[in-house]
């Protein structure tokens, strides 16, 4: 196996693979507890691991493994190292990045967690891992009528997939209601109220896997934004204009047959329980000039509550969304520039804004964030805590001549936990702000001079 690793000629890859090779032998998980929250369509899994180094060399990092069905739906993995006891717990964020393992069984995917300090022989550390899965609840039946409620499958393993030996582990599934149609039994497994418990299982070898299916009711809004394009336009005259183009869909069981308004209106809780029609967007504080429309005009069903910490825009699409129904809309707003634009110590300016989608509890399949810098800005660079595709474009807006630089950030599979600040640095000379007013002034001046000249010039060929 080391021989195969040599094929990876890159030094970093070499180092990583060698170290993981050693740690795979030397680490073991003493205790694993997994709590999977299935109450919304975004599956959140909290994994508590107690990792111990039983080898002779210090281990710098460890691997988290995910089955191939989950790895493509994995929106985010975060890890925290827990230090201290009970009351005085402190959490230290750890560096997590995706990793390729050549010897991965059944195309399992890996994430590499780097410890803050290498774990010495005999030492143990407690890790809190949060990972979020999207599109992992599969509606069954696939099509339902208006009055049926929505049942979904969730597939996972009763034991934690791991390249390490796990001494003891338990897994909890939390369902949104007590209605659970069925769940695979892997002894010991039992259900109490909204919770299904698998375990405790003792001493499982690496890559143990015990597939389970949970079939349960989930009527939470399956709001999936298929595509979101956010455009942030910086104007050094004092405001940021944000325009968000949504293509929303109901990602749950498809609606079948009739939609009866009379049933929907009279018995909302029974008829149409799987549908949703209210959405909530969390916007920045001091937001103004908010609009909510689609390409055929304004939509009048929205409320805005502004606050000191955040503003909330409560709105409804034009019609309630049943499974498979789609809607598009645009939300636009303006925020004061001084809240988000700062000057870095080196003289560059930077925009500090929130990434992600302002809608709560929503999955975004494809997010494109465009930061339109003012005309004349140079050297743009974006700083984000996670990997995104970056690109540069040019946009022509009001009276532009050279065009504005647009920093395009693009990321797939975005969940609310991606709503973290990011920065875009650029250099800008304030003199460029005057370009357009000067242009207008000179244009008017030219018009007046021409009309002056016209009045005074006699264009007649024959003198009268």
């Amino acid at each position, binding site marked *: 196996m080391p021989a195969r690793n040599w094929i990876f000629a890159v030094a970093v890859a070499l180092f990583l693979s060698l170290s993981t090779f050693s740690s795979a032998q030397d680490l073991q998980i003493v205790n694993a507890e997994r709590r999977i929250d299935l109450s919304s369509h975004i599956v959140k899994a909290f994994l508590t691991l107690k990792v111990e180094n039983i080898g002779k060399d210090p281990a710098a990092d460890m691997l988290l493994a995910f089955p191939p069905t989950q790895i493509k739906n994995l929106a985010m993995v975060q890890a925290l190292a827990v230090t201290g006891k009970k009351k005085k717990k402190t959490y230290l964020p750890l560096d997590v990045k995706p990793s390729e393992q050549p010897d991965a069984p059944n195309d399992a995917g890996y994430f590499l967690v780097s410890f803050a300090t290498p774990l010495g022989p005999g030492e143990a550390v407690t890790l809190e891992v949060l990972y979020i899965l999207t599109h992992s609840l599969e509606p069954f039946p696939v099509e339902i009528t208006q009055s049926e409620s929505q049942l979904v499958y969730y597939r996972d393993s009763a034991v934690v997939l791991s390249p390490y030996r796990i001494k003891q582990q338990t897994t909890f599934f939390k369902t949104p209601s007590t209605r659970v149609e069925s769940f695979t039994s892997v002894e010991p497994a039992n259900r109490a109220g909204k919770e299904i418990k698998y375990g405790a299982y003792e001493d499982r070898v690496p890559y143990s896997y015990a597939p389970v299916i949970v079939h349960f009711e989930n009527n939470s809004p399956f709001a999936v934004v298929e595509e979101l394009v956010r455009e942030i336009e910086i104007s050094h005259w004092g405001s940021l204009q944000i325009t968000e183009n949504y293509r929303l869909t109901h990602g749950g069981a498809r609606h079948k*047959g*009739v*939609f*009866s*308004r*009379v049933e929907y*209106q*009279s018995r909302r809780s029974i008829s149409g329980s799987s549908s949703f029609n209210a959405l909530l967007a969390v916007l920045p504080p001091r937001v103004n000039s908010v609009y909510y*429309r*689609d390409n*055929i*005009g*304004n*939509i*009048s069903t929205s409320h805005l509550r502004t606050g000191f910490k955040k503003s909330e825009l409560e709105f409804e699409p*034009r*019609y309630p969304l049943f499974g*498979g*129904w*789609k*809607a*598009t809309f645009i939300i636009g707003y303006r925020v004061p520039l001084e809240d988000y634009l700062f000057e870095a110590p080196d003289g560059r300016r930077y925009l500090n804004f929130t990434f992600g989608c302002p809608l709560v509890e929503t999955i975004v399949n494809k997010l494109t964030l465009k930061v339109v810098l003012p005309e004349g800005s140079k050297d743009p660079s974006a700083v984000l805590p996670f990997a995104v595709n970056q690109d540069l474009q040019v946009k*022509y*807006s*009001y*009276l*532009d*001549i050279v065009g504005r630089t647009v920093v395009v950030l693009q990321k797939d599979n975005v969940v609310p936990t991606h709503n973290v600040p990011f920065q875009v640095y650029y250099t800008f000379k304030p003199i460029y702000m005057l370009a357009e007013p000067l242009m207008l002034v000179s244009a008017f001046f030219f018009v007046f001079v021409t009309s002056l000249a016209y009045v005074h010039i006699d264009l007649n060929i024959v003198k009268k």
Partner: protein
Amino acid sequence: MAAVESLPPGTPSAMRNAFGTVLSALILVLIGVLAFSIRLFSVIKYESVIHEFDPYFNYRVTQFLSKNGIYEFWNWFDDRTWYPLGRVIGGTVYPGLTLTAGTIWWVLNAINIPLSVETVCVFTAPVFSAFASWATYLLTKEVKGSGAGLAAAALLAMVPSYISRSVAGSYDNEAVAIFALIFTFYLYIKTLNTGSLFYATLNAIAYFYMVCSWGGYTFIINLIPMHVLLCIVTGRYSPRLYIAYAPLVVLGTLLAALVPVVGFNAVLTSEHFASFLVFIIIHVVALVYYIKGILTPKMFKVAVTLVVSIGLVVCLIVVAVLVALVASSPTGGWSGRSLSLLDPTYASKYIPIIASVSEHQPPTWPSYFMDINVLAFLVPAGIIACFSPLSDASSFVVLYIVMSVYFSGVMVRLMLVLAPAACIMSGIALSQAFDVFTGSIKYQLSSKSKDDAEDNTSTKNAPKDDASSGKADKGEEVAKERLSKKGKKKEREPAEKPSVKSKIVKKKALVLPLEASIVALLLLIMLGAFYVIHCVWAAAEAYSAPSIVLTSQSHDGLHVFDDFRESYAWLSHNTDVDDKVASWWDYGYQTTAMANRTVIVDNNTWNNTHIATVGTAMSSPEKAAWEIFNSLDVKYVLVVFGGVIGYPSDDINKFLWMVRIGGGEFPHIKEADYLRDGQYRIDSEATPTMLNCLMYKLCYYRFVETDGKGYDRVRRTEIGKKHFKLTHFEEVFTSHHWMVRIYKLKPQKNRIRGRVKKLKQKTTSGVSSKSVKKNPWM
């Protein structure tokens, strides 16, 4: 309004002229701003969106134009409407409006002003109404001087009739056409006054723009020949008249034929024949004048007898040919809409589809008051003012008002043509009245001071007279060239400066008592104020409500009924892109523009049979309707129902038209079957045909479950048939206030059963039939 004229004399005239020019330019700019901003109520009160039914089509065409360019636009065959026939848009649409907005959009984007096509379309009409008021100024200035021009421009800027068609968001042909109409008239009068071929060419181009914009161009091509004829008959023929008319007919007809929608109609249809006839007459007259000039009177008499006898024969032949041509075409060469102009009862008698449109109905008296308000009282005064003195130009506006009053009496829609004429007349009337009143006040005041210093009078009056006559001289100097060209016909006073000389002669006669003048002035101002208040009210309340969004004011605030867009958005996002939607034609344009779905019929009512088919389907029982719709490949049926919230212009109220139009083509639909004793009703007294027709069922399906009784708020009655099931249609969407209901045609069941039977027969011989029965599709 008459500020320019009522300036005190005495300041140096050059300075005064400059000041007057700047002042009138400033007033014109303000009038433009007024015209633009009074039309923004709809945007401020509602939103910046296209409002009515027709504009949605224009908007969609503009979108296509801006996306695909002009050549694609000319060749555009639209397969999303009139399914399965389609429609050649490039050849059947008046392209003026779309090209104008498309050009504006293109220019704005070229200088990097990224306005959307929608924004440009919304604001095209207000911008062009500003242009129209400036054109009115120019026209009236040519007729009666700049004072009258300013007054007319200000009146036109806010005349309710025009506002009704040009508020922001009503993106209709008339928006630019009225400007084109007035501007064409202005250039005609300008050519008539100057005899310049330059203006004659411009006039033809302006006429071309009008032809591009609106079918109402036939009004121009009939009115101008009538005026020419009038001039000839009253002995006002002049070379200027010839210059004004002949190039217009030649160039104008050539240009008009370039517009695809007009094409050879420009020479083939009878709407244009009057112009050709007058074209011949003016040439004959010109020839006569020419011959008269070169021959001695005696020789001339001989020539006349010769020519008249030959001419009569030629004329008779021409007339005979024309009559034969007209008679050979099916409608006598006249299109239905034009025929209903001449005979107001024509449409309602023969073409229900024209009669079913409310704007094709004759107006009622209140609508005159609503649409032109006090102008109706000022117009006669204006006509009188036009006769003192009568000039070529003023005779034209008199003819214009007479004709437009007649046409507006035929069709509400043509009130729009009357409005500019009424504004011009009222502007002239107001300006003249102000002239007389301020003049007499001035005279009275100066005669008072005459009492104070009797001996000074002569010396005081003399310089004043000198000054004013100097001014008049100057005015005449300016217009000298023009006058010399006008020939000896009539000494027309320069319009800008009503000659003070003649006034002084008349002054003694025209002068009014001081008190009377002041009171009359105040009354006139009050009249103006009343007009302004009415216009603002009309703009804000009556004409700015969009038809796609309805609002109602109730005790707990404003209620918005946005059902149309709700269901159009639903259609556009949740049905297949090639699905066909059937609805009554009123909603065709909106469905294609907003929902982007193929429709069977739309507001361009070019195929009566197709509309009748949909009407028949709506008035047939469910099964028959299903068959009709299925044969048209229809997947969804959309009906508009106002019974829940009391929206009166819904499909049930339009239903009799569907029956009539359907019955016109398919005689098995009889209007009488839907009426109980001649009364249209939907309650328990209604006829069984009515209660079983598709429209009734689609509108009232499960309606009774809303309140338990099935009380229709529009018809103010309980519905006749409350509980019923649909067998061939299923409800797929109903908007929040039930205004729009969309049904889906159920798939064909019978054929599947047939297949099942066949399968059964096949399989009975083979394997056990039990499993087949259970699952025939496996």
